């Protein structure tokens, strides 16, 4: 086995070579995960905010369920999505199996509970400060959710990042519903799995370093955004 530095060098070599296959794979990874995170936020943020801000019967149970669903194993999510999208399944006629759309669906199922559970916590903390003032101003429930989501936007950015991190690093879900088909549904993580199964461990590790670099870049960008937010007391 090569040394760590050799593998690091190989990773840089891959990036610098700008290999078209690699670029395609990275592009698909980002497209699938970013889309899934975006959809998860559209569903999960208002859901989490509503559970965080409002009192309703069964609220405690809802919170427990949301938190528990954060621990859904990706491979189980993949199985569930496969059973839904399979030709033998209820959504079979849509013909989504083995396409990037199926991967987006699977990752959305995976990430939405994370976004909902974490945003619930964030919004609940923010809401404590505002509840009385909202009552006084006569703010309706929808406006409250909207105001809280906007107010907590930088903390919620961290929530979205958590979802992104989970999705971009998982392989279990996308490999079952995507099929790891070359040039169609092959992403970073499934490529790493493939190269590992072919015994090309150094290449797999180098790809892992590339994936890590992408994750670092995304998080770094978010960090600088937050830094400016702190200065404006927007956090």
């Amino acid at each position, binding site marked *: 086995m090569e040394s760590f530095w050799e593998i690091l060098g190989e990773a840089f070599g891959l990036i610098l070579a700008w290999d078209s296959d690699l*670029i*395609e794979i*990275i*592009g*698909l990874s*980002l*497209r699938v*995960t*970013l*889309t899934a995170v*975006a959809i998860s936020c559209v569903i999960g943020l208002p859901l989490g905010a509503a559970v965080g801000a409002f009192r309703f019967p069964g609220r405690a149970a809802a919170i427990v369920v949301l938190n528990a669903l954060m621990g859904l194993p990706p491979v189980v999510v993949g199985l569930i999505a496969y059973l839904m999208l*399979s*030709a*033998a*399944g209820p959504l*079979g*006629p849509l*013909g989504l*199996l*083995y396409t990037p759309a199926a991967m987006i669906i699977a990752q959305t199922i995976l990430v939405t509970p994370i976004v909902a559970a974490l945003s619930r916590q964030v919004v609940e903390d923010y809401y404590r400060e505002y509840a009385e003032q909202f009552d006084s101003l006569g703010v309706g429930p929808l406006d409250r959710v909207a105001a809280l989501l906007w107010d907590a*936007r*930088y903390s919620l950015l961290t929530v979205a990042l958590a979802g992104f991190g989970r999705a971009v690093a998982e392989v279990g879900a996308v490999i079952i519903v995507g*099929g*790891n*088909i*070359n*040039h*169609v549904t092959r992403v970073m993580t499934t490529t790493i799995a*493939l*190269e*590992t*199964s*072919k*015994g*090309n*461990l150094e*290449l797999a590790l180098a790809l892992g370093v590339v994936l890590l670099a992408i994750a670092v870049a995304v998080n770094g*960008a978010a960090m600088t*955004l937050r830094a*400016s937010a702190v200065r404006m007391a927007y956090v």
Partner: protein
Amino acid sequence: MFRRIVLALAAAGFIASGPAAAVDKFIVVQSTTSTQNSGLYDHILPLFREKTGIEVRVVAVGTGQAIGNAANGDGDVLLVHSKSAEEKFVAEGHGIARFDVMYNDFVVVGPAADPARVAGSKDVVAALTGIARAKALFVSRGDDSGTHKTELALWAEAGVDVAAASGGWYRETGSGMGATLNMGAGMGAYVLVDRATWTSFGNKSGHRVLVEGDPRLLNQYGIVLVNPEKHPNVLAGLGRQFVDWMLSEEGQAAIASYRVDGRQLFFPNAGG
């Protein structure tokens, strides 16, 4: 400012994906990881596409999963190497008919140290008996795949009860060929593997082919068209074109022409 960042990220995600694969015709073939990993498909499928314009999308999973997927109608063609399972597939009405398409052979690979002293043997049953007697580490796929079924049949012939030894010198990984080989290499254990996978495997780590050439090590691949009557979404016309091509002189020649390190990995034997 915040809005702009979000939009930029979204745009980047979509743009980075590159041009969408706008293909007119494609079929899905359910096959095995060992076939995929050998690189055979990368060699022959472009030839098929050039001839017919049909893109073949290969879903490479374990044999059992490939058959299961096809039985759900999630593939147009099934190409695995487990004759009895393939025939059962057809008998249950999931497939129209099963054809021999190619074969290769299995080999037993093991550590250079060769604790069971089986190197050079041309009798796999005797070799396995030796491994069992020496209680030398042996890693099995344990996943009901074609390779696994062949392996179990050989142990049976050798009269060894591997189920009883599981967890001891006999380790079942429940994984694909690649993962199993990685483990075998890591543990210094013997592994039964098809030659094509072994030749193209990148982590040999000092292991060598120790047993080969036994007629019982034949590994037959079969191709089956999924039954459109049972699964109406199957693209039977396009699928049939693929099956026909694979069995045709042209397809068989393509299979034969695939080499790794100058070595032919698959031997076409359609029609008998």
